[in-house]
């Protein structure tokens, strides 16, 4: 009994040591900018990013375990234009976009909405093409906050503070330097919602390595986006980023 108890305590202490070993003071943490720049390097390099002027991604969208599925199409163009459409089965379309100035959302369920303030700032930031090489413009600071395990793999935890809005925390796998997780508080008209996004299935397309699966957790629900295809430098329809009529009607008001 004594031996068993001692063994249990030893295992517990080893566990503690293993855990605390990740944040030992003698292991110097790389600077955030090194991690972020290395991400650019491992995903294709700055020169390849700079050749991208627009992109189109298609895939699927699913509320995990709820049986609600749909398709997703997303366009982005420099400098920060974006249009995303999710068509959910038996629900209808949810569109989200910005022409680089007006950020908006239009839902078959909830109707049209023009984003303002922090909500708009987040949309414009997320719409920015080539954002991995532009982080210095988009964020006023980036700091390495430690090392944490994500799915058992040690990751650098990087906290980025945007020029406008709340900090985001990104986790970069120590070994591959790929981003594997992100947490942030999404600011929307419905409130400030804490979210966690797990990023996986990096694949190379057009010379760039990008995540093809993201699993998002918010409000106790999970949804998953699986990207099937990404095309760069497509012939973009001229009116792709024009505001929908429902949004124009609100702008006029």
């Amino acid at each position, binding site marked *: 009994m004594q031996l068993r108890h001692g063994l249990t305590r030893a295992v517990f202490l080893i566990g503690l040591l293993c855990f605390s070993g990740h944040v030992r003071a003698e292991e110097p943490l790389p600077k955030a900018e090194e991690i972020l720049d290395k991400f650019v390097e491992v995903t294709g390099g700055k020169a390849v990013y700079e050749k991208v002027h627009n992109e189109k991604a298609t895939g699927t969208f699913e*509320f995990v*375990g*709820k*049986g*609600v599925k749909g398709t997703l199409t997303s366009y982005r163009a420099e400098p920060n234009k974006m249009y995303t459409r999710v068509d959910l*089965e*038996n*629900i*209808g379309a949810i569109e989200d976009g910005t022409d680089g100035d007006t950020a908006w959302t239009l*839902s*078959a*369920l*909830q*109707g*049209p*909405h023009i984003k303002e303030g922090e909500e708009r700032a987040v949309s414009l930031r997320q719409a920015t093409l080539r954002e991995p090489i532009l982080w210095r413009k988009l964020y006023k600071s980036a700091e390495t906050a430690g090392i944490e395990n994500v799915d058992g793999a040690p990751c650098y935890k990087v906290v980025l503070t945007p020029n406008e809005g709340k900090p985001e925390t990104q986790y970069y796998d120590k070994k591959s330097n790929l981003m594997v997780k992100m947490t942030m508080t999404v600011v929307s*008209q*419905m*409130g*400030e*919602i*804490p979210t966690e996004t797990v990023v996986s299935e990096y694949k190379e397309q057009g010379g760039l390595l990008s995540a093809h699966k993201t699993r998002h957790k*918010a*409000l*106790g*629900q999970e949804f998953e986006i699986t990207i099937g295809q990404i095309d760069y430098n497509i012939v973009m329809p001229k009116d792709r980023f024009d505001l929908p009529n*429902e949004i124009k*009607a*609100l702008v006029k*008001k």
Partner: protein
Amino acid sequence: MRSVCVFTIALACATLADGQPTLTAEQKRLNLESFEFTWSTIRDQYWDPTFGGVNWSSVHDEFRPRIERAATMPETRHLMSQMLGRLGKSHFAIIPADVYGDLDSHEDAGGSGTTGIDVRVLEGHAIVTSVEEGSPAAAQGVRPGWELLSVDGTELAPRLQKVAELYRNATTRELYLTRSVLAKLTGDEGSVARVQFRDGGGAVVRKEIGRIRPRGSLAKFGYLPPSYVWIAARKIESNIGYIAFNLFLDPARLMPEFGDAVHSCTACAGMIIDLRGNPGGLGLMAMGMAGWFIDKPDQRLGTMYTRQAPVKFVVNPRPPVYSGALAIVVDGTSASTSEVFAGGMKDLGRARIFGTLTAGAALPSAIDRLPNGDALQHAMADYISEGGRTLEGTGVIPDVEVKLTREALLSGHDPVLDAAIEWIHTRK
């Protein structure tokens, strides 16, 4: 107060417990997994980390051995429903696999055949409130105001008395009473309901009424059982718009049709939205529909409180917005999203509510498939209407209380609708 599902399941369990096949070892294992999933889902997602004073860990320790000992599926379901009942909230239920249906098929929902009769229980009596045009009941000459005495040999009075007693202090009483009658009238399509009525003259009338496919389109949303959804829009006295629909579901079809109905009536003196008999559905649809009546941005119907964060039920104006008089008609069978919509519009001062107290069953819920094939319905949040009132257990109190009466129905009147119309006339 539990949801309708819990009620019907409890009834089913009570009647089916005998003679059920005993569980195999594999079924027992799946039931235990389902129990753990159910318990931990509540532990992790219930909006109140104190569980309203219920010791949720103790509940686990109490029920797990009982689930292990359960010999049949009805017994297992009954125990799991009992466990959920400890929370004392609506929208927590175990939905049996056979009720849940084949989730991956688009087959018609079985047993949903209708006679075309709608009913309410008035002063303890099941009274026909409407007869659908062209339905088997209409063909048989059934009229609003007739009293249903029995269906397929089952006397309704003792059944109603039992339900009324069980829910005597609950706001959901009318909902359960109505459901208990409608459940008897509903059956397989093509089957015949043998119904005994008391007609307007007091004579007992026997009718054999066929059951047909319900009106509307079969809509599927995620793992919810498929449901028939209809929407009806018309004009009353040529200048009052009237919209009714049976569920806040099938948004891809319902939202545009609702919007078209509003837009076709922009010059109308008033608009009436009839939510009687509407048990709710997707909460987001309430916000979307409100947008056709509210032109001021950043208004909200209420706030949903989840474990993670409060979520505002914001209304996005959808120009051109209808700005005329708006009446919403409700009764004790208006539940959930119907209450979110009616309560929020009342609190915002945008609508006048007519009818009787709503069901007070307004919590937003999700449905998750369990390892044993059943499903768990669980509320994920509390909901407070914009006026600061919780709707759960209290319901939406009408501005103008008007009750249906048998006499009015027999004389071809709908006093609730009449009151809404009269109010619109006085606003001209």
